């Protein structure tokens, strides 16, 4: 790739800073919504049932959206700096379209009281609603805008990479299966980008299909679509989006970690096998969301468990062992960046095991839609993705020396990490006590003990959420000081 001029580099840096600021502002606001929800469930505060579901919808859509956007933006910056020329105007188009989508979702929920949950499970947005029709229409349009923005962003990156590296097969690493050594080395971030963003394109197309159905339904209420088909489309879209968010982050973990350990993390045949497997598993694992739909063809149920189980092989034997090989006896200095990446991989492993439990049909028949489910994906997000993002943001804003001296940020990080895992432990225990998810409160549960356990767990978890927020705000002092400063250097230069 032709070297970028300093003007071009500054342009890309400005874009990632804008994304970072947006993420950092929205993230604690969305955590606060979660805090209010748990306070309501804990019967500490009464926010009203309708507001609970409004907040639940905004919290879910907002978190999935900001995490994916930041993961994508981080990947974009890293790729544009070193590996491929990406169009800055397209980058800004994606940003502003996402922003418009976010504003639409916010108006639809906070003002329009839309409260069908992040997944808008058909036909709930149209039946027995407590919100007006306009807010349903607005949220559909907003999600279409978000989907189009992400789709264009993904397509742009995938095609730019394919052009740069000689085709789609090459960015998926298939040249490593040949007898000859590839002429050009494939950077792992390019391989991981392809494996993440191509399924992302398919997911956004699935999202577009169900949103078009919803638009038709909105204008022609007499229509009925097949519920099972729509549910499959929704979960293929939603599961894949969350799944690839984590994988996008791994793209930069593979790239940045070796700068701290001074050990290479290169693409080889094994890595390509592993990520090719991941590509395949991403597409089929979503079936595990529909185990309790007995009408779903049995083959798809088996495929869900098989894909979920076998996805553990590339995740643990290749990426997690790759991380161990990076840090084992590496004499590295533990600043917040390698620490966040190592802890993020650990969180991914813990959440991954809980996901394997839940993806076992015989166990899912008891754990399905209890608090076990949000527990495991919150582990992925809070204990994995967020740590990767924080590590990345410290990396692009601080020098290595500055980070080693920054004890306040480290204190904030540890507070955040320990509180996050405390919060998660209580979530898991709720699942083990069969506490249902998506209940505004537990007052309607006739079994007194279940009601009490649910409410108490929720109340205690709010203490941990408060420390998560405090830890985050302590880290913000360093992050904002650097992000808002001019002429910030980062580790990539």
């Amino acid at each position: 790739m032709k070297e970028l001029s300093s003007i071009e580099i500054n342009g890309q840096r400005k874009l990632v800073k804008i994304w970072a600021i947006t993420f950092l502002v929205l993230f604690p606001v969305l955590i606060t919504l979660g805090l209010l929800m748990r306070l309501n469930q804990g019967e500490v505060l009464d926010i009203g049932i309708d507001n609970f579901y409004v907040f639940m919808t905004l919290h879910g859509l907002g978190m999935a959206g900001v995490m994916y956007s930041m993961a994508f933006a981080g990947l974009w910056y890293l790729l544009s700096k070193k590996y491929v020329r990406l169009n800055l105007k397209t980058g800004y188009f994606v940003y502003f379209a996402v922003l418009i989508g976010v504003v639409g979702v916010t108006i639809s929920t906070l003002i329009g009281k839309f409260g069908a949950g992040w997944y808008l499970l058909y036909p709930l947005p149209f039946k027995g609603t407590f919100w007006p029709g306009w807010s349903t229409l607005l949220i559909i349009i907003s999600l279409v805008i978000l989907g189009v923005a992400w789709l264009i962003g993904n397509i742009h990156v995938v095609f730019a990479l394919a052009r740069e590296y000689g085709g789609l097969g090459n960015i998926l690493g298939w040249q490593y299966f040949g007898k000859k050594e590839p002429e050009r080395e494939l950077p792992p971030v390019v391989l991981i980008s392809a494996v993440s963003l191509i399924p992302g394109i398919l997911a956004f197309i699935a999202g577009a299909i169900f949103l078009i159905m919803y638009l038709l339904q909105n204008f022609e209420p007499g229509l009925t679509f097949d519920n099972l088909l729509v549910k499959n489309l929704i979960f293929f879209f939603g599961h894949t989006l969350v799944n690839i968010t984590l994988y996008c982050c791994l793209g930069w973990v593979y790239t940045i970690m070796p700068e701290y350990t001074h050990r290479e993390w290169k693409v080889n045949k094994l890595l390509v096998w592993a990520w090719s497997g991941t590509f395949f598993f991403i597409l089929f694992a979503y079936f595990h969301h529909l185990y309790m739909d007995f009408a779903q063809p049995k083959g798809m149920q088996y495929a869900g468990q098989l894909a979920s189980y076998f996805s553990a092989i590339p995740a643990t034997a290749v990426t997690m062992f790759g991380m161990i090989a990076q840090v084992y006896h590496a004499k590295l200095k533990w600043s917040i960046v390698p620490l966040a990446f190592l802890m993020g991989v650990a969180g991914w492993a813990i959440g991954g095991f809980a996901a394997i439990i839940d993806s076992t049909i015989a166990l899912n028949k008891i754990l399905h839609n209890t608090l076990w489910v949000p527990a495991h994906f919150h582990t992925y997000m809070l204990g994995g993705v967020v740590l990767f993002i924080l590590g990345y943001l410290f990396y692009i804003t601080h020098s290595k020396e500055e980070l080693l001296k920054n004890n306040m940020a480290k204190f904030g990080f540890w507070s955040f990490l320990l509180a996050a895992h405390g919060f998660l432990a209580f979530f898991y225990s709720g699942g083990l006590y069969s506490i249902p998810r998506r209940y505004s409160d537990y007052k309607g549960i006739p079994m007194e003990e279940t009601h009490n356990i649910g409410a108490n767990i929720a109340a205690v978890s709010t203490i941990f959420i408060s420390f998560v927020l405090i830890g985050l705000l302590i880290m913000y002092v360093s992050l904002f000081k650097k992000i808002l400063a001019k002429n910030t250097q980062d580790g990539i230069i």
Partner: protein
Amino acid sequence: MRLLTTLFTVQNFAAVTSFIAAALVVAVVIFLIVTSQEDEDKASAKHKVYSLRGKYFFVLVILIIAGLFTSLRFLPYDTHKGTPDQLISVVAMQWAWKMAEGPMDKNPQEFEGTNEITVPSGKLIQFAVTSMDVNHNFAVYNSKGDIVTQTQAMPGYTNRLNFRFQEPGVYHVLCLEYCGLAHGFMVGKINVN
């Protein structure tokens, strides 16, 4: 045997295995951080890790195959449970359950049933579950507050759930799929004689 089945619940299995897995991860992380200051040649350190990986891979594949082989024998789908002794039709609606003995001879809107039914213990009951409006989830809780079985209630589809109540007592049906404002208050009752 009874003690074994009491101890070996899904919840206990999930709790114990997840705790062990999480403790193992924490132990590995602590070990990596504590020993990270030791200086070792890059090639030798990598060789050690990757030879351990070979063994790990072998154990993992065995565990996966054993896990699949064991767990796929305990599926909740009707084909695995034999011929039912009694049929209960269930229609979910915002925000109540319509339950009645016998096949559903009307469309779900016109179907008549009650929020409370009585069934015998020890018999294989088949719940034929559907919905007349949005998606719901028919989850049966025992008196201790543990889920004993569940299935989705989806408009246009009938999910057939076979279940044998081993213990007499009062069971409750809670909705486990978000279905609108009163989702948390959609409660039914099953008396088991």
